């Protein structure tokens, strides 16, 4: 990747003075070992959740959408909430791999692989919901403009749902391609290390990667190009998702602040999810040297930053509702805060606006437990944000006669759980069979640091001490 000269004071991204070979074995050795008991427990419970979800979805498709708690007024609830939630989660991956790449954030290399994987799995979860929320999912392919015997009858280009189809489709494809291209060198390494069947498989997957300098040159250009494409893409995707609401006439939906609001929210929840997984992974997979406190701190800062913007967005909404002078708008927000779903609004504000503010304090950032808790809170909060936007706006709109309530059914709860099952099942399988860390990129980083930051060598040699990590934090703040 394009070389940059880091400030001389910059301490190493990777601790423990790794040799290239050391990195290789650190990254690839776990894949050769048998899975730990911990992994099995995690995997089995995730698979169980997935199974439950599958049963729920199957039942719902066989019997009907009526098995959800929806009614004539509340036409969307858990389904689209989950959809937007998962799309949001997905965003962090692309952001870390693409945007941080463009911004030359070298620390991204330890986490971008898993973050991208997370993106792909999250988008898979997200893509599930628009399909199963249809009354006739077996006709879902009608949303594609394909030649047919009906005239032909095309699709409605004006419908945000159709935009979703293209946005999510593109997002998934590009993320997958980007991820796969990033994987190629490590797949090559895997091929080298593997024997028998795995060698065959990885041989096939690695597309005959041989690390020729010519290939490397093109490879890096391609990466930068894809990054440059993915960056506007990630912004567009959640903007499009937000137009599902912003372009509707429903008070509480019909607002121009949604696109930026949703994108920031997505980054916010995404980073929380990445950090959460990272905290688990570095423990479970013993990658403390690669995912260092420095990473944790950097992520924390992004979270507190985006969290504050989300808070600002909430405030803006309220102000506009009042300032618009539109009684329906005013009511929508009064009802959102003090109506039957006021509790959900409370949960949302606490988790998304108040809780992350704790990350201003270094002590909090230092205690991994606290950080872990906050990341979970943020994810809960962001789920509720979408729930509040969707349900509290729908259930009481223009005509008082049409007002209703909403209570989810067991099927809906099971489906939500199932989507988490799907996500974690895929993620755990990924940890087992593919390198969680982009070894080749790490090697590049380590090597370049070794050659260009002799000062850091010393620091690294001393090993990690509170002081130098603290110092390190300052520099990262400067960078981030």
């Amino acid at each position, binding site marked *: 990747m394009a070389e940059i000269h880091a400030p001389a004071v910059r301490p190493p991204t990777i601790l423990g003075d790794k040799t290239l070979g050391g990195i*290789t074995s650190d990254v690839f050795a776990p894949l050769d070992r048998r899975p730990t008991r911990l992994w099995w427990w995690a995997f089995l419970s995730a698979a169980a959740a997935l199974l439950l979800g599958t049963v729920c979805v199957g039942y719902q498709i066989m019997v009907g959408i009526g098995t959800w708690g929806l009614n004539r007024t509340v036409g969307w609830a858990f389904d689209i909430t989950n959809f937007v939630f998962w799309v949001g989660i997905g965003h962090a991956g692309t952001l870390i791999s693409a945007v941080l790449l463009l911004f030359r954030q070298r620390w991204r290399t330890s986490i971008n692989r898993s973050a991208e994987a997370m993106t792909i799995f999250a988008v898979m979860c997200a893509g599930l919901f628009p399909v199963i929320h249809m009354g006739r999912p077996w006709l879902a392919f009608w949303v594609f403009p394909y030649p047919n015997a009906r*005239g032909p009858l095309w699709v409605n280009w004006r419908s945000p749902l159709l935009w979703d189809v*293209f946005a999510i489709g593109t997002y998934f*494809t590009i993320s997958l391609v980007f991820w796969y291209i990033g994987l190629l060198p490590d797949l090559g390494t895997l091929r080298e290390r593997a024997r028998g069947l795995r060698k065959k498989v990885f041989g096939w*997957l690695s597309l005959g*990667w041989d690390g020729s300098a010519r290939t490397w040159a093109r490879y890096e*250009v*391609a990466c930068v190009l*894809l990054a440059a494409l993915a960056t506007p893409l990630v912004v567009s995707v959640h903007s499009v998702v937000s137009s599902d609401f912003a372009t509707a006439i429903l008070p509480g939906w019909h607002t121009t602040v949604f696109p930026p609001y949703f994108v920031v929210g997505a980054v916010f929840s995404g980073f929380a999810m990445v950090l959460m997984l990272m905290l688990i992974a570095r423990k479970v997979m013993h990658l403390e040297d690669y995912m260092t406190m420095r990473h944790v701190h950097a992520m924390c800062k992004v979270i507190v930053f985006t969290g504050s913007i989300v808070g600002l967005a909430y405030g803006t909404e309220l102000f506009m509702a009042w300032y618009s002078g539109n009684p329906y708008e005013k009511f929508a927000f009064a009802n959102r805060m003090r109506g039957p779903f006021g509790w959900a609004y409370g949960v949302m504000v606490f988790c998304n606006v108040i809780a992350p503010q704790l990350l201003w304090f270094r002590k909090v950032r230092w205690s991994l437990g606290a950080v872990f808790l906050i990341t979970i809170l943020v994810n809960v909060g962001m789920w509720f944000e979408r729930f509040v936007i969707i349900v509290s706006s729908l259930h009481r709109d223009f005509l008082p006669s049409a007002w209703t309530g909403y209570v989810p059914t067991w099927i809906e709860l099971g489906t939500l759980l199932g989507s988490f099952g799907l996500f974690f099942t895929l993620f755990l399988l990924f940890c087992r069979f593919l390198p969680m860390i982009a070894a080749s990129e790490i090697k590049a980083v380590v090597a370049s640091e070794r050659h260009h930051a002799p000062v850091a060598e010393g620091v690294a040699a001393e090993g990690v001490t509170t002081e130098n990590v603290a110092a390190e934090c300052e520099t990262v703040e400067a960078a981030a």
Partner: protein
Amino acid sequence: MTRRIHVALFADEAQFLAAARTCRERGLALLDAFTPYPVHGIDVLLDVRPSRLPWVCLAGGATGLAAALLFQYWSSITDWPLNVGGKPFDSLPAFLPVAFETTVLFAGLVTAAALWLRSSLLPGRKPRRELPGTLDDRFALLVAHKDAANDFAETRALLESLGAVACWDEMEDAS
């Protein structure tokens, strides 16, 4: 017609680069290099021309944009104009999101495809050279003589003196 080439493995990026530079100065031909991660500078020594991928990418994106816009206009004005919520047939603003996504999709896929094809990275391909450790921690340099009249022993000695941890020569057909 075949010719004999030298393969030298280095354990350190700096030595590797230095060796490449020296060989070049000594008038040896640098055929190729294999490294575990992108080593900067080597591409210059190998005279790798700057990639044309950006243009491919641009072309792909342009195609996507044009295709999306044309198809949307054609299908909603020419082929079957339908009154959707009283909106005009030409709802350009509403056509933009799809147009944008298609642009990105085409650009991305075309770029990736171009990379794979150009570097002949394809399913089932065998790597051209499987040199020990070049995907782990070794840096391989492939050197050949411009003219046949040259002392191989000398070259090997040179490479070893430049820090090659392993060094041997092979025959390969120059075609």
